[in-house]
């Protein structure tokens, strides 16, 4: 008798969730502190998607619950994710700017029955940590590998690599090195500098002394890139004809007004430029610019968030609003759509986004502002980083 009542109760609760009115999505990212701009971009991307596609999926309302992790802090990230799942009852977790924060959450997913949609964190390994992780951003392997070909095609055979000494920097170095050496080029020296470096003049002197014809560099987007680019010019490397190659983090749109003239002509490879010419992107930039307030602050995390929302909408459609993480993730494997950045799809194997990588050059627009001008396209790039891990 007791058992039947329990079963009936259980059936009732399950039936209760079946026509849930409000589906909650927990978004974790840096919304205050030094990286608040990136969190703001998450929000702008999410708001833009809701503005363009409605804030309802079927009959279900959506509620986005934001949680703030200002700086990489795996313990806090995990605690907040737990709180979101247990107390708020979110059905989806999303966001994550930093790799360690995302890594800390992956062990929770299976038990919580919650998929994780990563909107930025860019280390290859995250998707291997749980089958419930889907990523809509990029990896440094993905954005740096095509640069090797660009460098070789530009007639450069000796390159010095200079990266910030932390996970993504090392990834960028390895990706470029692998591609460039495979193309027959030579890395004359690989320098890893501390993240807190302010004065890059000595580094530039080393670049000069190394006799390299090209420089491959990676620094996280933000204040230090300015000093780096200026030091490159001021130490006469630009005039000496040394070519500057980097992934697009160095010339993110929100830093360009400050970099200005100094960055002119720098070539970068990246998955998204705010200037990308397509009707989807025009609509996106307009909506996201409105959401963020000042369109000049728009940068790449916004498009990761926008596509992350697309994936979550599809997941909700496929499960009819029921909480079934596995079914939700299965539903988006192989999903392809046209994103503001161009045609993309979710690789069924890795659950990472397959996308075009663009070669861009910093150029001056007619109104005097600077932008990343797309000049070549590498179509349908997967994540070579996963293959390199095996």
């Amino acid at each position, binding site marked *: 008798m007791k058992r039947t009542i329990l079963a009936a109760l259980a059936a009732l609760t399950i039936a209760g969730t079946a026509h849930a009115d409000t589906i909650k999505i927990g978004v974790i990212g840096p919304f205050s502190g030094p990286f608040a701009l990136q969190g703001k971009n998450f929000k702008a991307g999410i708001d833009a998607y809701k503005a363009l596609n409605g804030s309802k999926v079927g009959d279900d309302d959506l509620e986005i619950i934001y949680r703030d992790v200002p700086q990489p802090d795996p313990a806090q990230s995990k605690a907040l994710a737990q709180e979101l799942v247990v107390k708020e009852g979110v059905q989806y977790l999303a966001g994550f700017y930093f790799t360690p924060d995302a890594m800390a959450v992956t062990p929770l997913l299976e038990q919580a029955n919650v998929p994780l949609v990563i909107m930025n964190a860019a280390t290859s390994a995250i998707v291997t940590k749980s089958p419930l992780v889907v990523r809509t951003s990029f990896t440094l392997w993905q954005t740096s590998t095509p640069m090797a070909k660009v460098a070789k095609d530009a007639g450069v055979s000796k390159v010095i690599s200079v990266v910030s000494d932390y996970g993504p920097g090392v990834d960028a170095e390895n990706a470029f090195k692998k591609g460039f050496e495979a193309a027959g080029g030579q890395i004359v020296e690989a320098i890893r500098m501390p993240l807190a470096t302010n004065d890059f003049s*000595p580094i530039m002197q080393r670049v000069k002394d190394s006799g390299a014809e090209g420089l491959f560099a990676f620094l996280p987007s*933000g*204040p230090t890139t300015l000093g780096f680019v200026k030091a490159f010019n*001021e130490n*006469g490397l630009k005039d000496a004809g040394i070519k500057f190659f980097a992934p697009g983090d160095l010339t993110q749109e929100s830093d360009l007004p400050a970099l200005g003239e100094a960055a002119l002509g720098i070539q970068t490879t990246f998955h998204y430029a705010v200037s990308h010419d397509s009707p989807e992107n025009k609509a996106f930039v307009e909506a996201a610019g409105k959401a963020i307030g000042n369109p000049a602050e728009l940068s790449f995390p916004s498009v990761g968030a926008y596509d992350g929302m697309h994936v979550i909408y599809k997941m909700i459609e496929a499960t009819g609003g029921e909480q079934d993480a596995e079914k939700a993730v299965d539903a988006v494997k192989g999903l392809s759509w046209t994103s503001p950045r161009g045609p993309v799809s979710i690789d069924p194997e890795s659950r990472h986004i397959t996308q075009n990588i663009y070669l861009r050059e910093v150029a001056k627009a007619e109104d005097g502002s600077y932008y990343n001008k797309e000049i070549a396209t590498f179509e349908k790039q997967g994540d070579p980083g996963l293959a390199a891990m095996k």
Partner: protein
Amino acid sequence: MQTVFSIAVDALAYGMVLFVISIGLSVTMGLMRVVNLAHGAFAMIGGYIASYAARDLGLGYGFAVLLAVFGTIVIAVPIERLLYRRIYGAPELTQVLMTIGITFCIIGIANYVFGPTLKTVPLPPALQGSVDLGFRSIATHRIFAIGCGLGVAVALWYLIEKTAFGVKLRAAVDNAAMAAALGVRTEIVYAVSFAVAVGLAALGGVVGAELLPVEPYYALRYMVTFLVVVSVGGAGSIPGALVACLLLGGIDTAGRYLVPEFGEFFFYLAVIAIVCVFPRGLAGRAGQ
């Protein structure tokens, strides 16, 4: 040999930028006995004012620098009257809590008013580009920074050691009650030296903007470096701060050139060694 010269030039430039920004902190900490963690915040305000004046209002560089220095002082004087005056002579913990609180307020306001993006101070054509030294080229604005550093060092030394105001300041620092009894208006002396320290912070913020770009977290990002310079040099000593900046700039630059993968290891190793041998800094005064 060329490498040695090259490192020396970079070290001199970097050390001088550090000096211009840190010397104001040395004055507040050494002469006024206030652990002013908001020093970086005042440097940042200077940077913002200069950037706004030069970029958005289109004023000349020299004018923007002056506006930054005096604008920051105008902002800082009421803060001194209302907040700092309460913590003169207070325990260090009280001072740290108060000034770190002020720093966070300024960060929040800067973020709200100017937004989170980087701001630069556009240089006049005369300071752009680079100068060929024969064995290498160096950015013109770095030479300007070296000049500023030397100018500030000489002017400050003269002010404190050779003028009547310097005498009053040193008297007020050593024994405020006795100085007041002898007719020195200590609160005015303190207000003026605070204004000088803040003005120097602002100057440093503008001159150093090419190396340390202005953004809301400037106030905290470089605080450790400034504090290290002051503690190594000995709080309140101008020659001490100058030697500390050149020494630390040299070690940092040489380390970065020769073994970048060690990061700031040598910088902090040197700091530990110096502080072990000279607990009050290179030129700190004993027995206070």
